[in-house]
Each structure stands twice: as structure tokens, then as C-alpha cells.
């Protein structure tokens, strides 16, 4: 039809809307996609044209990705990238090869830099009709058909007529005051945007107050890095792991740390509603240099002055000193008064006059402040460091917590989530999870792989 063709031509100038499914080894690429003007990463698959499958996914994650794909309205397409050019599936060591790749006509991209252009091309082809929409991956079977009692399917046992329209209505449970209120189970899946990609929670909610959180299958919490084909650590993760066993320039490590914190801040600002400012911070993360640290100082000043950010984070997600002491370390513990920092043990940092950034309060605002202050401090250290190198002491302070110890900080944070989130309103819970900066790949990494410090 003429109308459709005209609309397609008009739509070709708009950014391609993508929903990102981020697996293992793709977390270096995923955040930077938001910077590209040709892409628009959306929060819901209902609004997306293209499904970006990045990294390596295991069985559970593939099934969830298939569910996300089927939720996208046609015309839709799939674009996939995986680190070694193979199909992005992974499976646990010694296990059977899982479900086959569910998408039949995905576009494979080998070079991550090509992703935006390929996405745009795919979207244009889909909207103009030159390419057929990607077919359903799951069978068209109603998971909850309505079979009531009676000749017309009406009615059933119980107050609500049994299972109306195929699914039960909310059960009732006590709230904080002992009143019996309706409670529903929300299966927060691996790919719900404000939460880290791969975090799976079963949340029981009364209204918008969280009553109970459980992690359904800890083994499937995150994409599995231990799979056939040597898992490789790239980019920032490789750098920090290399510092476990060999001297690495302090400037490189500190710039990587500052960059990580700024990327985190960009996402945190986006979730707080300041999407445009988050994008500005992301651009700063890409272009910042230790010699020109004024933009970061300006950013820190602006954030301190912005009262509206305080409203959402002050007093939210309190991590008590005792909980902080149970963590291996990291910015979350330092924001609650626990001053452990692996860099304090390193004489190279001692010569640079390093003292850890510690705040006493332990709420989300404190965690924001600690990370911003650490980013500023990291750039200052990088500038002062010159050519000096770290000394390998078997423990490295990564941006999320110490690497090389017996547990990863992110795994400890994930196990802490159920107790922490109970009783919180949904918005506060999201603020808390975002402020914890959980690295899902680190949360799943078995400790011996971290200690061995394998790098590509």
C-alpha cells in the first residue's frame, strides 16, 4: 500500500529501536550502544524492532531470550554477536548441549563496531517489507487454557471460580501489620531493563511493596562463563585479572576504574529519569583523560547540587555495618563504613598517598557518592602515577570489589538481595539494586577461575 511505503520511508530516518539481551562476555559492548545515535535501546520488547543477542547465553537464558523475542510485535528481526564468531550458546562443563539456537534467520555480526549499522539496515529491510519478520520461536500453545466447570467453561471451585481465564487470581498473605492482602508473584526475568542483565528473582508483591524475594535457581543466576571453548576475559576484566600476577601500570587500572564508575553512573541516572544527562555522562566516560579531569569534577559538583537525586536515594537501601562486614569489600562496604580496600595493601599506591573513600551512612546516596568520589580520585591517581606499576599481591581492587579472594563481591551481593529488598517499595528496590552495581558475570564466576586469573 502507498501509505505503508510512505511510512517506511519516513521511518528510515529514525533510530533503530533495539532490545538488548546481554550474555556473558558482552558487558564491555552493551553499555556503549546507548551512545550511538542510530540506535535507541528500549525498555520493552513491545517497542523494539530488533532483538540484539550479544555474548554467550546458556540454556535458561536462551529460553528467556526466545520468550522476549516472541513478545516483540512484527515486523521484528534478530541480530546476534558472540565473542569468537560462533553461535552464542554455552553450556555447563560436562553437560549436554542445550536447546538449539532458537532464532532461524538472525543476522550475525562479527565485529561489534558494525552492530549499529547492521541494526539500522535490518530495521529498514523489515519495515519496508524487503525482509520477512522473524517467525515465532515458541509453539503457539496456550500455556493456561481456560477449562472451567460447566458446559460453557464457566465457574469452578473456590471464591473466585477456581482458575478464571486459565490462571488463578492473587492469593492472600499477611502484610507488615498482619492484614491479609492480595499477593502476586512476579517472575522478574533475566532481561528486565532496570535490573542487571541475567539477574533472575521471584518477587512476591503486595501492591507495590515487596514481601518476599527468592532466587529460583542459583546455578542459573548468570550466563555461564565456564563452557566449552576457553572463556576469555577481555578489556577491563582482563586488565584487572592480569594485575593479580604481574605488574600493570597504575594509570591504566585507575582510568579503567573511573570509566567503569562513569558507565555505572550513566545507567543509574537513566533509571532515575535523567536519560539525557545519563547519555552525557556516558560520552564523558568515553572521552575522559586523566590530564583533562575537569569535566569529571564539574559532574561531581553538579551531582552534589542536584537535590532531586537526593530524594530518590537518601535513606534507601540501607546496608548496615554488619552486613557490610560480611561482604568481601568493595564500594558497597566502603559506603557503609567498612574501609577495606585492596589498594591499601599495595606499596605502589601508598607512595601515591592513597586513602580509601569511606562514608558512614550505608544508603544508596552514600554508594553514589563513594563511586563518584572514587572516580575522581582514580583520575587524580592516574595523573600522579606517571609510569609506576602495581605490585602483584594476589589481591586486586576491582571496581565492584576485590578480585582474587575466596568470594566475589557480586556473588555476595546477590545472596544479600533477598533480605535487603524485603519491605521495600518497587521503586526503592530498583534504586537499591542499581546502586549495588552487581556484575552478573563476576557473580557467576567460580572462584578458582578468578584466582587463576585466566586472560586471553
Amino acid at each position: 500500500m502507498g501509505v505503508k511505503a510512505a511510512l517506511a520511508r519516513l521511518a528510515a530516518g529514525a533510530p533503530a529501536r533495539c532490545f538488548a539481551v546481554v550474555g556473558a562476555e558482552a558487558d564491555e559492548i552493551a553499555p556503549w550502544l546507548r551512545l550511538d545515535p542510530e540506535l535507541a535501546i528500549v525498555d520493552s520488547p513491545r517497542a523494539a524492532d530488533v532483538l540484539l543477542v550479544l555474548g554467550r547465553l546458556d540454556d535458561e537464558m536462551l529460553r528467556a531470550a526466545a520468550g522476549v523475542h516472541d513478545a516483540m510485535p512484527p515486523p521484528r528481526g534478530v541480530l546476534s554477536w558472540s565473542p569468537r564468531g560462533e553461535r552464542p550458546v554455552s553450556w555447563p562443563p560436562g553437560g549436554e548441549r542445550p536447546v538449539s539456537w532458537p532464532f532461524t534467520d538472525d543476522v550475525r555480526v562479527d565485529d561489534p563496531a558494525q552492530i549499529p549499522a547492521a541494526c539500522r539496515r535490518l530495521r529498514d529491510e523489515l519495515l519496508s517489507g524487503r525482509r520477512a519478520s522473524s517467525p515465532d520461536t515458541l509453539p503457539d500453545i496456550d500455556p493456561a487454557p481456560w477449562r472451567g466447570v460447566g458446559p460453557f467453561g464457566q465457574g469452578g471451585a473456590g471464591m473466585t471460580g477456581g482458575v478464571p481465564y486459565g490462571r488463578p487470581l492473587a492469593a492472600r498473605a499477611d502484610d507488615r501489620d498482619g492484614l491479609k492482602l492480595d499477593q502476586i508473584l512476579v517472575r522478574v526475568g533475566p532481561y528486565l531493563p532496570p535490573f542487571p542483565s541475567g539477574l533472575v528473582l521471584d518477587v512476591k508483591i503486595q501492591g507495590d511493596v515487596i514481601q518476599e524475594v527468592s532466587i529460583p535457581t542459583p546455578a542459573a543466576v548468570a550466563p555461564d562463563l565456564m563452557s566449552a571453548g576457553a572463556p576469555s576475559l577481555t578489556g577491563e576484566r582482563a586488565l584487572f585479572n592480569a594485575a593479580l600476577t604481574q605488574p600493570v601500570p597504575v594509570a591504566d587500572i585507575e582510568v579503567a576504574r573511573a570509566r567503569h564508575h562513569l558507565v555505572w553512573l550513566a545507567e543509574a541516572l537513566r533509571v532515575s529519569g535523567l536519560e539525557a544527562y545519563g547519555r552525557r555522562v556516558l560520552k564523558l566516560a568515553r572521552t575522559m583523560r586523566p590530564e583533562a579531569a575537569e569535566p569529571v569534577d564539574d559532574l561531581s559538583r553538579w551531582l552534589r547540587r542536584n537535590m532531586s537525586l537526593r530524594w530518590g536515594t537518601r535513606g534507601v537501601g540501607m546496608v548496615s555495618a554488619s552486613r557490610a562486614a560480611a561482604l568481601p569489600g568493595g564500594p558497597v562496604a566502603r559506603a557503609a563504613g567498612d574501609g577495606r580496600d585492596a589498594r591499601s595493601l599495595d606499596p605502589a599506591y601508598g607512595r601515591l598517598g592513597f586513602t580509601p573513600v569511606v562514608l558512614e551512612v550505608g544508603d544508596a546516596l552514600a554508594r553514589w557518592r563513594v563511586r563518584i568520589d572514587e572516580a575522581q580520585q582514580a583520575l587524580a591517581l592516574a595523573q600522579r602515577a606517571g609510569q609506576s606499576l602495581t605490585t602483584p599481591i594476589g589481591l586486586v581492587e576491582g571496581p565492584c570489589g576485590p578480585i582474587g579472594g575466596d568470594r566475589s563481591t557480586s556473588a555476595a551481593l546477590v545472596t544479600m538481595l533477598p533480605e535487603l529488598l524485603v519491605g521495600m517499595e518497587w521503586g526503592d528496590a530498583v534504586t537499591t539494586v542499581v546502586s549495588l552495581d552487581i556484575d552478573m558475570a563476576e557473580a557467576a564466576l567460580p572462584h578458582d577461575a578468578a584466582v587463576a586469573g585466566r586472560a586471553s
Partner: protein
Amino acid sequence: MNALRVVIAVLSVGTVSVAGIYLAAWVDLLVGRAVAGLEVRPLDALIAPLRWGAATALKARTTTERPDAETWALAPALLAALAAVGLAAVPLAPGLLAADVANGIVLFGAAMALVVVAVFLQGWSPNSPLPMIGGYRFIAEGLSYEIPLAVVLIAAALPARSLAIAPIVTSQEHLWNIVRQPLGLPLYLMAGLGLAFWGPLALPGGQDLAGGSSLETSGVSRILWRLAQLLVLVAVAAMGAAVFLGGWLGPLFPGAAWMIVKTVILLVPLIATRHFVARVPTERYVVVSWAILIPLSLLDVFIAGIQALVAAR
């Protein structure tokens, strides 16, 4: 001819609606690009809403397992219709008033009160957890901004001794209400942000709900929801311009031109707030609204009352 004037007024409401919505979308893009550090490119930003609309319209409509299909279809239409009625209560020029009733403030208040219903229905209908939370959140927000909104408009009606908007505009001939009732406009704009669930008060559709009440909509319905939201913003700005900034009053230029200028003067900051102020958590907003904003608005009425009494002496 009376009927001719009414028809012209109705058509002008339509024109202002369409122009206002487009201007709002354009300003939003401009401010967003400027804050994000991208090149602003105003001409490209002028066509960008159409491009977004075309790309969205080409997507098929989604349904969920057991939605409430009728109310899901009704919600954006109801929101837009209520906003249009609100805009119709505003005099766009001396003598050009579509809804020429004796109590325009009450008509505006009634239309805006039902916005809560429309937004709740948008969250309720898909039968999905996150939009449900968004819908119920908006009820908390809606009940909280309602009283300050109505009370500051009553305070503005006091000097005019009338609930109709045209007398309120003419009562500002010597002094605009923004000057003699300084609490009025800030409280009104804050309530207006809540009314349009925009910026810091974008609670039903916030990023922490992954799109919230609009999570499950796609295709043309998504565009319609956005259009309705922007129309509410335009209605809020127009009413604010009439009641606090003196409406069509002003030297040299015709009344309609002044009305447009003043509406834009209120519309731009309302839209820009989205990029500078973070979203307020529901509980905090409710407590602030009931404990601080309502007493302030009652103080505003009190001040306006004393001023009116003194002026009558």
C-alpha cells in the same frame, strides 16, 4: 453570529491542540539533545517526531493473555478527550472561548480529576504486573496533586469574584496573578507536572517499571498515549497562562498572539523539567504534597482573600 463564533472557537481549540502537541515534542527533543551533549540540529528535530510516529505505527498491535480490551482502547482516547475539554475551557483570545460556561474553573477541575481514571485504566487493562503497579502509583500521585491544583485556581478566582475564566483574565488588567499571588504559579506548575505525569512525576511510566503503564502497548496505541500526554501538558500551560500570566492582556499585539506567547513561556520550562529533575519516589511525593503543598496552597487562598477584602474597601 453566536453559532459561528462557537464553531471558530472549537476549530481554534483543535488547531492549538495539534500545534501545541507538535511544539511540545519538538522542544522535548531540543532540550534532550542539548543536555545530552549532542548536536541540536533543530530542523532535523522538527521532523523527528514524525519519523518516530511512522516507525511506531508500522508495528503491529500487541495484546496480553487476558486483557481488558475495551478499557485498553478507551484509555488514551479518554485522556486526550479530557485534555481537550480542559483546553476548551481556556479563552484563547478576547471573545474566543469554546466552552463559555459560568464556571470554567470547575469544568477544568472536573476534566482534570478524571485524568486519574484514564491513566489507571491504561495500567490496569493489560493485566500485567508492572503496568498494574504504574496504574496504582498514579492513583496515589493523582489524589495528592488534586487538592493543590484546585485550591490555587480558586485563589486566582477570588479577585475576579467569578469562577469563569474570562473575568479572571480581565481582573489581571492592573496586576498579574503571578505577582500578587506568588505561591500560585509554582504550586500550579508542580501540580501540572503531576497531571501530565511528566518529568519528576512520571511515576506510572517510569524507567524503574521498564515503561510501566505503556510497557505492553505497541503500534498506534503507543503514539496515541504520547499525544494525549502532550495535550495534557498544553492544556496545563494554556490554563496557567490565562489564570496567572494575564491571558490575552498585553500591549500592541493582538490578544491571541499574547496568549500563544505566554503558553509557550509556561510550556518550555514544564517540558525541560524532565531533563533536569530526577523522578520523585511515590511515598516522598505523597508526604510532601499532603504535609507541605496543601498547607501552602491554603495559605495562598488566605493571602488572596485578604488582598481581595482590602481591595474592596
